[in-house]
């Protein structure tokens, strides 16, 4: 029991390095992956630098309401006379943080439950599998809408709720993957060394799942962005400053029907599409590496 944790097995020494190498290969050898990766980096850089380079207009300017794009405001102004470009530049940060938090929680839950369920097996496994089935048959957005009737959701609370809600789908993929890993020699070796289940899950199995985790991370980020933007759009979340909120404001102001300031609604829509597309492409490039059978 005393020095079990000092074992270094073959699998864990190479798992992480192999994963990083593989992902780099995937991204640089796949056109869509490369484009997605660059887009994502661009959005992240923009979000980080925006508060300094393009500070938000804090005051409204009644003389400049809903103007068309001009030299001063390259995307025009919104219904309070604030510059839209500054809002676009600043709007991604909150969304990215939110999505990352939700995805991390979802991954942590899904991987832990999935791996333990496959390793322990037996009754625990079948009960968990059944619960996951039940969980998956609860519609996500309606559930969130109903929940918002009970709690006052904030953006970060929503991230946690979303993370917890998304365990079931990931659980199923991870479980299936761990079941196939379980047959491999190094896991058997780990069992024969009488290592604890916790050690096996976190030190032996997880490093070998990094590819799956990365793919699912981008998938989860995408679905949580979708959920948040939907909820914001339906006016259920309190308004903070991000692209979803901009769409909501533009919609409630009826901007769609005013071709002069169409960028107020078009710009955040395009940005959300770009963000989601970049996540999808990066995810797909990573998936090709994790599932070599899918490679052409």
């Amino acid at each position, binding site marked *: 029991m005393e020095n079990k944790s000092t074992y270094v097995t073959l699998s864990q020494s190479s798992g992480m390095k192999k994963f990083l190498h593989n992902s780099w290969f995937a991204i640089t050898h796949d056109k869509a992956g490369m484009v997605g990766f660059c887009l994502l980096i661009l959005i992240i850089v923009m979000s980080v630098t925006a508060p300094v380079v393009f500070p938000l207009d804090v005051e409204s300017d009644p003389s400049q309401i809903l103007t068309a794009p001009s030299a001063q405001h390259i995307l025009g102004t919104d219904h309070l006379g604030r510059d839209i470009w500054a809002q676009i530049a600043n709007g991604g940060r909150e969304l990215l943080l939110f999505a990352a938090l939700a995805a991390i929680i979802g991954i942590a839950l899904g991987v832990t439950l999935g791996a333990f369920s496959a390793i322990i097996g037996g009754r625990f496994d079948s009960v968990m599998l059944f619960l996951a089935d*039940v969980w998956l048959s609860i519609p996500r957005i309606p559930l969130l809408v109903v929940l918002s009737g009970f709690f006052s959701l904030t953006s970060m609370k929503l991230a946690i709720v979303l993370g917890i809600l998304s365990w079931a789908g990931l659980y199923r993929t991870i479980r299936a993957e761990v079941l196939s890993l379980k047959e491999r020699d190094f896991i058997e070796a780990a069992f024969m060394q009488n290592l604890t289940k916790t050690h096996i899950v976190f030190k032996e199995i997880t490093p070998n799942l990094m590819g799956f985790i990365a793919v699912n991370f981008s998938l989860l980020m995408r679905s949580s962005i979708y959920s948040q933007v*939907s909820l914001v759009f339906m006016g259920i979340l309190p308004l903070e400053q991000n692209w979803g909120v901009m769409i909501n404001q533009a919609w409630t102001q009826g901007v769609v029907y005013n071709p002069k300031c169409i960028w107020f609604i078009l710009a955040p829509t395009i940005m959300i599409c770009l963000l989601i597309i970049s996540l999808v492409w990066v995810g797909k490039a990573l998936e090709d590496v994790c599932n070599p059978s899918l490679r052409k």
Partner: protein
Amino acid sequence: MKNLSVLTYLLKKLLRMVLTILLVTTIIFFLIRLMPSNPIDRYIEDQMVQYGISYAEAKNRAATLFSMDLDQPMYQQYFAYLGNVLRLDFGDSLLSPGVSVMEIIATRLPWTLFTVGGGLILSFIIGIVIGAVMAFKRDRWYEPIVTGIASFLSAIPDFLIAICLILIFGVVRWNGESTILPIAMMRGTYSMQMKPGWNTEFVLDVLMHGMIPILTYMLSQLGVWVLLMKTCTTSCLNTDYVTMAKIRGLSSGKVLFSYIGRNALLPITTEFFMRLGFIVGGALIIEQLFVYQGIGLELLRATNGRDYPMMQGIFLVMSIAIVVCNFLAEVLYAVLDPRIKAGGAAKNGK
């Protein structure tokens, strides 16, 4: 013997479905009844503060509204609630007193089924055809473009597609004079002056109003079908039995339908039924965008007005629809896939 194994497979799935519905209902009951500051307590408090009535009276009102006997012990309430759900009795709506939740759902549901279902079926048919064609034309120059558009469509949220559609059809004046569609006249399920009935005028009006929502649903799901059909067909094309069938000199139609189609359709039909379940619950935002009077809009309205019996009823209907459709998908799988009849199903059943 073979039939027996199919029967046990289906029975197992049926049992599973009933259990799932039971669990979902239980979760909803405890959400409504046992949580701190649950809607019933909140309602009683509201009534006492607003109308100055006594606690007992407010409790009575709450009891009739939620159709629960609040004086009974919890487990009896739970069973009474289960009985009510079994009879599809979710109590009365708080926002429109005297009208039962089920009545409202019954008037709203057809609209949602019409638009989302229409969109699903259209996208299914078009998507399958495009996907199958793309699988055969893998080496043409336009294949990556079509696949790219399909993956783009399947990735972006549906309401962003809706906004783009509104911009294209209802806002931008392409010829400089008028927009393609009078989008401002197309809100709601039908025009105000129309009287519902089975005449041509009304049907045309309904189609007119439903057009953009249906188009939105169609586009948002089209990509999934194209990609799925393409992958399934491609993987079938490369198998030995298809090559063998070709070598045996079977006609290409026979190969296409009996060897490729039969296998490719398996995952597709399953996916179709899975998505069928999400019809009822998948339309909140689009319905809000177009003020389409479907069940999703009703759920939003109920949530904004804290109409708990309504919320609970709609949510339950949405969940049950999904569970039932999943069950149907599994039944269909058993019918379509001869391998399940061979008895392997019990082991690899999900």
